[in-house]
């Protein structure tokens, strides 16, 4: 029953339903957003930041690594309680969580933990991680992100399959109820180790329609919404009284991947023609200065290893046409392209369609359901794939998933190498186990250069994420970047 002073925060998020509320499994935006509210990692990014150099203690009070970098030891904070009476957090839970995150059956983050030799608990509050090779950015893997979230061992074992709709963590807010296709309700974790949150209840609503979210926000039915990632929208809603807009990084890089093994795209000149036909400035102008950034390389801005020292193709229609002619397509080419219904990809694709048309490259767009899109692009059904992604902000994650031939779609180890790119395999693999940071950066740079020389893809722009809130909502810190795509809500957050 609603008590008289209950503070309820109502949030409208994208998507029509939760996917799986299991932090090790789900990589969907709508789920990712609420994980940091419910879970903690051993360490965390400072609230409102995604800077790897500003990592702070969270469940772990302190940590150290051995000289060879192969052994890491974490001291846990004492007295941290899991939600719903699942007891105190111990090293066992951490061991269980990290093992869970590194297993293919229980995690989608398992690849990142391939170099973990063992995780053990020497005592109740100590966790020891032994690696097979040194990982310079190990701390990143135990932050409050994806595999780094610590779950309750007892809860996972007890709930089994139901854990994904009944997550148990240690965060400021505890899961209360999930209503499919409608909402998730979280309640304040009064025993939160940093202090009880000032918000009593969070209603996290699934509202796939942007207009509906905005209308409901306008009507005061929602306090915080996932906004439309467009300049105009941002400017308009900013003008409204009592509204504050947060534009959050890290951005998602929108890249046009070109299948280098098929059809006209086999010819590098056609791929170059496409690269020249793309008008990044127009795209950024469309999306808007505040919410989009022109991309400078195949690795997103702000990622460790990103460089601008790469051969990016300039917008040049004449050159594009000439290249096409040279390739034997004086009348242009037509490509049958599959694209999702989801606006954040479809709309840029429609702009690309119009841009390429000017160079004589006709895109015959087939708009399909989002899931069909994912299935089809993994079957090489579309020669051009426009894909947007944010990954862990290290060049390796991007290069491995999109440009390593191991990850080529259609192979057993497939991830998301849609272009069948194989130009930089050596560099990417070498960089991963390179302990020397400078050498590592150099390798990553070469890799990026090679990928672009082979013209595997056209990086276009980076899309930031927009949230709008009532000014009554105060995070308690500056909300700049967030790996979860959403604002961080914790004990500091207030709603007047």
């Amino acid at each position, binding site marked *: 029953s609603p008590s008289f002073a209950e503070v309820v925060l109502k949030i409208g998020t994208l998507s029509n339903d939760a996917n799986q509320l299991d932090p090790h499994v789900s990589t969907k935006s709508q789920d990712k957003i609420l994980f940091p509210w419910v879970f903690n990692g051993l360490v965390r990014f400072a609230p409102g930041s995604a800077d790897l150099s500003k990592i702070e203690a969270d469940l772990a009070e302190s940590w150290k690594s051995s000289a060879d970098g192969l052994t890491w030891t974490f001291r846990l904070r004492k007295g941290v309680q899991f939600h719903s009476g699942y007891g105190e957090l111990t090293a066992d839970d951490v061991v269980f969580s990290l093992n869970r995150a590194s297993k293919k059956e229980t995690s989608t983050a398992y690849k990142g933990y391939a170099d973990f030799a063992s995780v053990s608990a020497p005592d109740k509050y100590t966790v020891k991680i032994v690696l097979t090779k040194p990982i310079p950015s190990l701390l990143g893997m135990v932050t409050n992100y994806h595999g780094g979230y610590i779950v309750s061992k007892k809860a996972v074992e007890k709930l089994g399959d139901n854990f994904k709709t009944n997550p148990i963590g240690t965060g400021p807010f505890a899961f209360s109820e999930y209503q499919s296709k409608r909402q998730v309700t979280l309640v304040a974790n009064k025993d939160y180790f940093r202090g009880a949150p000032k918000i009593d209840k969070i209603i996290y609503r699934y509202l796939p*329609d*942007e*207009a509906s979210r*905005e*209308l409901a926000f*306008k009507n005061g039915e929602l306090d915080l919404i996932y906004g*439309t990632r*467009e300049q*105009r*929208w941002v400017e*308009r809603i900013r003008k409204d009284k009592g509204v504050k807009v947060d534009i959050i990084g890290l951005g998602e890089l929108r890249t046009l991947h070109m299948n280098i093994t098929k059809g006209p795209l086999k010819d590098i000149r056609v791929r170059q023609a496409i690269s020249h036909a793309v008008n990044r400035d*127009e795209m950024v*102008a*469309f999306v808007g200065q505040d919410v989009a950034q022109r991309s400078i390389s195949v690795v997103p801005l702000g990622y460790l290893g990103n460089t601008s020292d790469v051969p990016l193709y300039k917008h040049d229609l004449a050159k594009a046409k000439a290249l096409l002619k040279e390739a034997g397509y004086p009348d242009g080419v037509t490509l049958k392209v599959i694209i999702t*219904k989801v*606006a954040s990809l*479809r*709309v840029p694709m*429609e*702009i690309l*369609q*119009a841009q390429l*048309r000017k160079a004589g490259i006709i895109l*015959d*767009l*087939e*708009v*399909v*359901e989002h899931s069909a899109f994912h299935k089809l692009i993994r079957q090489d059904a579309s020669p051009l794939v426009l894909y947007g992604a944010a990954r862990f902000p290290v060049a390796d994650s991007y290069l491995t998933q999109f440009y390593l031939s191991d990850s080529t779609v259609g192979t057993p180890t497939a991830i998301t190498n849609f272009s069948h790119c194989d130009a930089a395999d050596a560099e990417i693999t070498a960089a991963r186990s390179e302990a020397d940071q400078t050498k590592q950066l150099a390798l990553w740079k070469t890799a990026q250069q090679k990928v672009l020389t082979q013209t595997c893809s056209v990086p276009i722009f980076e899309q930031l994420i927009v949230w709008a809130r009532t000014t009554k909502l105060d995070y308690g810190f500056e909300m700049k970047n967030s790996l979860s795509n959403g604002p961080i809500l914790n004990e500091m957050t207030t709603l007047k």
Partner: protein
Amino acid sequence: MSLFPKAGGLRRTIRDTIRVFNRNKTSWAGLVLLLFMVSLAVLAPWISPYDPIDQNILERLSPASAEHLLGTDHFGRDILSRILWGARISLSVGTISVLMGMAVGTVLGILAGYKGKYWDYMIMGVMDVFMAIPTLLMGLMVVAVLGPNLVNLTIAIALTVAPRFARIARAPTISIKNRDFVEAGRAMGFSDLRIMAGHIFPNILGELIVMGSLWIATAVRIEASLSFIGLGVKPPTPTWGGMIREGFQNILSDPWISIYPGIFILITVLAFNMLGDGLRDAIDPKLRNS
């Protein structure tokens, strides 16, 4: 060549039609509106001021002005041009799908009604199955399966229209079948085909046309609804429903993007409804004399 050329055949038909229309003035209004819409659609290539798919990002979301009479959408495309080209799709999807559904449904309905017995059971049984799936959902499924494009959209709507027309055709067929002139035909040794095609069909045609125009109105709406849900034709092809859907994102700031195509849907559907309504009143002999 007709054996007994009617006194001023065509002129007379036109005169009869005018008389029928005069009984219910809304038919005229409907017809005029409709002709207006059709001519817009037909003339779209010549009268639309811009290429409907040409983006002009810099001029996006501009309100109505001398350059863009109805403003531009969020890609900077001219809304008026898109509406004009969209009319072609809405009107042709609506009309063709209903004609297709009407053709199939009418043949089946007459057959079921005239032949009766197991023909009736079989045909109407199958029709009942199709009728058990609500119109929009049928369209939804078919388009989801076959992929959203013009042809599939048309087929989807035709599929939902056909069973309705089978029903519409069957009922009067049964009553006409018992009229003496059909019996007279049989007594004259006419084949079933001749009776169905030459004697029953012309007598139910009026009713079919009336229902046809009303269903085109529905079909235009279904097309718009499917486009609104995102199951319409491929981008960048303009359709009215799709335009409303796209404009819905900006409904609060730039409502005209949705409002203009909405008005055109409204007018078109209204025109077909008015035409059909008027025709229905005019053709119904019971409503005629009073």
